């Protein structure tokens, strides 16, 4: 990993981790929590939707699965003296959701990417219906509660925040590893021309499933943290299409298929969304806002911010007469190429 990349990551995570210690206003740290939730989700979604080119429109179902798993397990159990037990449950939940993802992916990914999108939407709807109807398990529309965390009231959000920083780091770490390994190359080949990828020996099904399972596993873990954070979950919020839409939009805004794109998208949109909610209140309005932003991005900036910026700087270099054979050093380490494809040193 290039020095610039390491420095960038260190600064980013350093600042992130410092925030809840430096700032005490609850609403800021709370905003941070939700930004991190979406950054992690967008980054995880990116593995399947960005790298592999399979736009999953049902990731919220796995987020909800993780949330319900955590809620159901801890509903009547002790969260431990220091309240950390639900966090220790995360790897188990992640693994469980990943296995579920393997099963679902194996069926859903037998088709082309647009039919895959269809299947995932349907999956989301089915998951929501299940959440509403399996009363004995999920409490149905009454929801499920977890014990509140015994954290210090003044810094209540901090532990959640820090765990989410960790999950984001995991997600980005996996993305980075994918981009720099044979797996990422295989995934990008699959995204570009799946049939040909198969023809040159790529383990197409294998990498697709791997990406899908890891992606939903991370989403599940984030869902579990969210459940513990809000302490009471309802099916329409745990398995909410808006969650999927949010993470997809953020990945697209920042630049899907890149390392930092989804994170950038989240850091732009979540505060914006919270601001709009604060100013205007109604959920319905920001459904329209989401749709509008989505459409604007598709039409004006289809590659997303990072790749488009990378493209511009690339162009400027050529125009200024610099050697065009050397891609932008920074761009390379963030995994951004001339037209949004990933070029890696």
């Amino acid at each position, binding site marked *: 990993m290039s020095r610039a990349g390491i420095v960038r990551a260190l600064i980013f995570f350093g600042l992130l981790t410092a925030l809840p210690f430096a700032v005490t206003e609850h609403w800021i740290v709370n905003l941070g929590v939700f930004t991190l939730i979406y950054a992690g989700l967008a980054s995880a979604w990116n593995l399947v939707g960005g790298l592999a*080119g399979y*736009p999953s*429109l049902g990731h919220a179902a796995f987020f909800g699965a993780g949330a319900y798993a955590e809620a159901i397990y801890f509903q009547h159990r002790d969260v431990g003296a220091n309240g950390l037990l639900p966090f220790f449950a995360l790897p188990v939940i992640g693994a469980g959701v990943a296995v579920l993802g393997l099963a679902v992916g194996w*069926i*859903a990914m*037998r*088709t*082309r*990417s*647009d*039919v895959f*999108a*269809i*299947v995932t*939407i*349907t999956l*989301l*709807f*089915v998951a929501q*219906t299940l959440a509403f*109807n399996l009363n004995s398990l999920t409490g149905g529309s009454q929801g499920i509660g977890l014990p509140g965390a015994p954290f210090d009231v003044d810094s209540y959000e901090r532990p959640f925040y820090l765990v989410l920083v960790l999950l984001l780091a995991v997600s980005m770490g996996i993305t980075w590893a994918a981009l720099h390994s044979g797996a990422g190359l295989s995934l990008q080949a699959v995204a570009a*021309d*799946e*049939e040909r990828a*198969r023809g040159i020996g790529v383990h197409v099904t294998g990498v697709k499933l791997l990406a899908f399972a890891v992606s939903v596993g991370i989403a599940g873990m984030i869902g579990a943290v969210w459940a513990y954070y809000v302490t009471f979950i309802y099916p329409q919020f745990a398995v909410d*299409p808006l969650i999927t*839409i949010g993470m*997809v939009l953020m990945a*697209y805004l920042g630049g899907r298929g890149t390392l930092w794109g989804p994170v950038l998208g989240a850091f732009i949109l979540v505060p914006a969304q919270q601001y709009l909610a604060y100013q205007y209140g*109604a959920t*319905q*309005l920001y*459904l*329209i*806002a*989401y*749709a*509008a932003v*989505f*459409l604007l991005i*598709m*039409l004006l900036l*289809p590659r997303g911010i990072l790749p488009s910026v990378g493209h511009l700087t690339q162009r400027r270099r050529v125009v200024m007469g610099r050697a065009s054979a050397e891609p932008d050093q920074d761009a390379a380490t963030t995994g951004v190429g001339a037209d949004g494809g990933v070029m890696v040193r």
Partner: protein
Amino acid sequence: MHTVIQALILGVLTGGVYALMASGQTIIFGVMKVVNLAQGALVIAGAYLSYSLFTSFGLDPFLSILITTPALFGVGAGLQWLFLRPLREEDRAELSLLVTFAVALGIEGVLSVTYKTTYRTIQAGYADRSFSVGGYQISAVRLYAFLLSAALLGLLYLVLERTKFGRAIRATVQNPESARLLGVNARVVAAAGFGIGAATAAAAGSVYGLLYSFNSGSHYDLISRLLSIVVLGGLGSIGSSIVGALVMGVVAALVAALGPPIWSDFSFFIVLLAVLLLRPRGLFGASLRGAL
């Protein structure tokens, strides 16, 4: 046995309505190779329009179709023109899915702001009437709905087979390159194709509003069913989507009659699963496997 046949009748009647909605989807896919994720939202929009016309002017939903269909035709063509046409060729396959999804959300947003989220339904006077044929009950509304769908599908067939415009559409579906060379204006066909798809949604919306209660969020359920139908039929021709719709309708009705009602809601998903596992190409269509 009686229950089974009763369920079959119900299934066919419901299937007919879904067939109308699915046909619009198939046309859009055929002409633009785009899976229109906003089809469900367009149906709901049609339902709301009919609802408004009914509650404000007492206009019967079957009649309001004369108004809503051209209205949504325009909306559909406009949506295509504004949001799909500008997509670059190489991006189209990947982005069109999300663009139509965004359109669906936008429609849902607009509807929920306009009508709030309370469930609505069109309570026509004849809503409770039913006919008794040979010992079997046939709800009047469902029968009229089915007849309307059949009539509109027939009309659609005539337009596609007998008019110059229809020929242009079919040519574009089969071979866009050749069609263009033969003078077919691809842009107009694309917009019109989408318009027709939206128009069928409007008509189906009137009926939907009569049969079910709905709100702005109902389009998820609807689009999931429509997509399952289209996958079952094979993304191929209108005929195959009609068959898919009828099969799906019958299966759902049978499951509702013979098992717990909740499974009926899932039946379309189970069918989808079965199709994907056993025959990804659907009943009639080309194989869905692989990138092409």
